[in-house]
Structure formats: C-alpha cells, structure tokens
C-alpha cells in the first residue's frame, strides 16, 4: 500500500530512461563526429558512455523489482538490466584495456537485439491499441534493426556508418520513450479496453 503510494507511474520512468538514452546518444554521436582517437585523448572520456550504460543497467533492476504488472514485464525488464550491464561492462573492459578483442563489441549488438525482442515479446496488444503499445512495437523493431550497427562495428571498428547509426539509435529511442504516455491515443486510435486518458 505504501509502495503503491510512492511508486512513480510507468510513463515517468520511461521519460527518465529517455533522458539517459539522450545522454548516451549525444556522447556516441560526438565520438562518431570527432573519431575515436580524439575522443580517447582524455582518459576519463573513454569510460563515459560505457559507465553510463552500466549505471542504466543497475537502475533497471529497481524497475524490474517494483513494476510487476506481469511475469513477462519482469522478465523483459530483467533482461534489459542484464544486457545493459553486459554492454556497459564489456565496453568498460575495452576502454580500460583489460579486454582486447574487437569482437567484445558483439555484446552491444546482443544488448540491442535482446532489448528489441523483449520490447516485442512483452507488448501483448496490437500496434493501434494505445500509444504505449505502438511505441513498444516501434522501439522493438527499431532496436532489432539497429543491432546491425554494433554488429558491423565488431567487424569494421572504423566504420562511420556503424558509429553514427549506433549513436542515433539511442537518440531515436529517447524520442520514442519521451512520447510514451500511460494511456493516450495513437493516430486517433485508443482501445476501449486501454482505459481513460488521465491528462
């Protein structure tokens, strides 16, 4: 009862994570613009986006714990938490020099693919059920397609297309998450079963 009183609504959490993805996107796009060598001139900058991804993975665990609408929601949030930790951890290892193989970047591809799949699997309503359903489908397919960018980076680390694509993926994801509302129409459609928009 107390928890229900202090727990934020899902849309707030989506907006906070959108802010995190906006920061991630800006960091990655900046790195793509200036190139990795310039980016790595200041050692702390190498750790910036991997540690941010890792932190977002840690913060995803409370989301998994407290937003227990259904088992599939918990599994989806839990898998996001784990792949964000894996992605951040692998990139931190590469930044620190503990990991050397460029194929560790495949963790980012896995992270995006698992996240995309989790979005699609845990949204059980159709595209036009409500805005949240539409955005879950959109985010899922966006991430699945975007998994190609880090996949390409693993084999061609200097690819600008892959670097920009990876960075812009997070900016697009931020826009998608900022657009989320708990109950709102999408293109004039809102299912009767979705509920009444609150604001």
């Amino acid at each position: 009862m107390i928890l229900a009183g202090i727990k934020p609504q899902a849309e707030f959490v989506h907006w906070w994570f959108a802010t995190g993805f906006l920061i991630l996107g800006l960091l990655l796009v900046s790195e793509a613009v200036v190139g990795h060598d310039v980016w790595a001139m200041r050692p702390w900058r190498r750790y910036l986006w991997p540690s941010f991804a890792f932190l977002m993975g840690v913060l995803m665990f409370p989301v998994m714990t407290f937003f227990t609408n259904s088992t599939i929601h918990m599994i989806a949030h839990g898998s996001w938490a784990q792949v964000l930790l894996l992605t951040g951890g692998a990139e931190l290892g590469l930044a620190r020099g503990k990991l050397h193989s460029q194929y560790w970047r495949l963790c980012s591809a896995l992270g995006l693919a698992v996240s995309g799949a989790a979005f699609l699997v845990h949204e059980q309503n159709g595209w036009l059920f409500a805005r949240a359903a539409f955005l879950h489908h959109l985010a899922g397919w966006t991430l699945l397609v975007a998994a190609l960018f880090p996949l390409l980076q693993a084999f061609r680390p200097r690819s600008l297309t892959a670097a920009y694509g990876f960075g812009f993926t997070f900016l697009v994801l931020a826009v998608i998450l900022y657009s989320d509302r708990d109950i709102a129409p999408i293109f004039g459609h809102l299912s009767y079963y979705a509920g009444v928009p609150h604001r």
Partner: protein
Amino acid sequence: MSADIAHKLERNLEIHDAAARGRLRRARIVLTLGPLTSAVGVGWAVLQPWRLTLLHPHGQGFYWLFAEPPLYVALVGVLFRWLLAPGIAADVLEGPE
C-alpha cells in the same frame, strides 16, 4: 627544381588547409549539438506547454512536478555544451588526424 619544390609546398599547404577545415567543421558540429538539443527541448515546451506541470503546479503531486521532459532535454543540451563540448572541440583542433 625550385618550381617543383614550390609546387610540393603549395600542395602540402592545400592538404594542411583541408585538414584544418575538416577539424574546424567537426569542432563546430560538436559545439552545436548542445544548443541544438536545448532548442529542441524549448521548442517542445512551446508546442506542448501542458507537458510542463511547473506552469500550472496547483494540485500536482511530487512526480508530476519532478517529471518535466522538455526541461530535461533542454538541461541535457546545456550540460553537454557546458561540461563536455569545449574539451572535445579543443581536442579536435589540437589532436591527431
């Protein structure tokens, strides 16, 4: 012989100029990212003022007052421009190709 050297020097200068222009362009892009992000946040606030509950705070709970997405976007842009962009731009101008 001297004409050859002059030609080579001229060519080197042209290459150097092109590289310098490229660095300057990249530095400008990085310096623009923050203000551009902030402009998007401000534009969003103007287009959807009801997303800013601070403008009509009466009766709003803590989370409704804390969650202000357009302000978040604007703030991220300001912080990026203030904390990160100057160093990145300086390194582009001084750093390796």
